[in-house]
């Protein structure tokens, strides 16, 4: 007599292995990315309201809480970006003839290298 037993999937499945935990962290970091985009929109809105509003916003951004949140958002953005750079070669494998280029090379060429160049240009533009 067949009587298959179905094991229930615990609601906390994502806490069970390190691979699942790291996956969940990657997913949660996108909340910080989204929140920062909203923050940038508020900046634009304040900028449109004139120099005084903009100055007030600038002061608020220098508060310790804001600095802590910025550091958190930066860490989340770095983790998020690096995980996706590392996954890019899986999504877009590059073939030259019969050979597939090494994943690391693709990740550097498509992700890390342009990222560092663009970041460098931005820093140069800001400090110039």
């Amino acid at each position, binding site marked *: 007599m067949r009587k*298959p037993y179905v*094991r229930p*999937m615990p609601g906390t499945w994502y806490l*069970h*292995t390190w691979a*699942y935990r790291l*996956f969940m962290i990657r997913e949660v970091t996108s909340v910080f990315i989204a929140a920062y985009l909203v923050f940038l929109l508020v900046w634009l809105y304040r900028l449109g309201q004139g120099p005084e509003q903009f100055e007030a916003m600038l002061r608020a951004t220098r508060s310790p809480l804001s600095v802590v949140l910025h550091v958190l958002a930066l860490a989340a953005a770095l983790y998020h970006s690096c995980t996706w750079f590392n*996954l890019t070669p899986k999504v877009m494998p590059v*073939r030259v003839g019969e050979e597939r280029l090494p994943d690391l090379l693709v990740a550097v060429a498509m992700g890390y290298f342009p990222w560092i160049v663009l970041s460098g240009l931005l820093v140069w533009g800001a400090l110039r």
Partner: protein
Amino acid sequence: MPDQQVTLSVFRYRPGQDAEPVFQEYQVPYHDDWVVLDALNWIKESVDGTLAYRWSCRMGVCGSCGMMVNGVPRLTCAAFLREYYPAPIRVEPLANFPVERDLIIDLDGFLEKLKSVKPWVIRDGVDSATNGEYLQTPGQLARFKQYSMCINCMLCYAACPVVGLETNFIGPAALALALRYNLDSRDQGNAQRQQLLGSDEGAMACTFVGECTTVCPKNVDPAGAVQQEKVLAVNDWYYNVLVPWGKR
């Protein structure tokens, strides 16, 4: 018999006898060249003939001895006792599948999913045998060869939380097999597979946990295959929206 022993804690479920699964402990002689499957065979021959599990080739080819070893999907013919010794080893049936009995899972659902992606070379019309064989260059073979190495061991299904949460998700192995045929230069069945692959049960259900690729004993990289299918599905969607008069 060696002096050293290792404890195997084995998942037991006997339908009609057990309402719930139980774990049964067995003391097994430890040999550093024994794999978990050897230990299970020793139990069945020497201690408890009622223990049920699947196995066949004991050399990583047939794909039938997949089980959860300490919570990780493994081919038990390739999981050495020495990797775990002296700690006890917990052996369970593959996760995310109904359990038929003890370590045996019900794989009917998997076989249906496998069939649903039409894993064979599809041709437009009927080709005559007199036309000869379909020629393929090594470069064309290289595009899909990796995805043809799957042995249907289902470790990737046990590793994938989406398979556990979304019962209808076609799953890693079947999606990788679909890509294997879509990338095959002899195949013309892309359009026939696309509707299913681009559906909610297809590639788009994947959240890219990536564990399917980690546990794959044949380096098939199903996670990569599924992501490439997502790109193809998105391209297909844009094509249909932007070029609605084009038939694809």
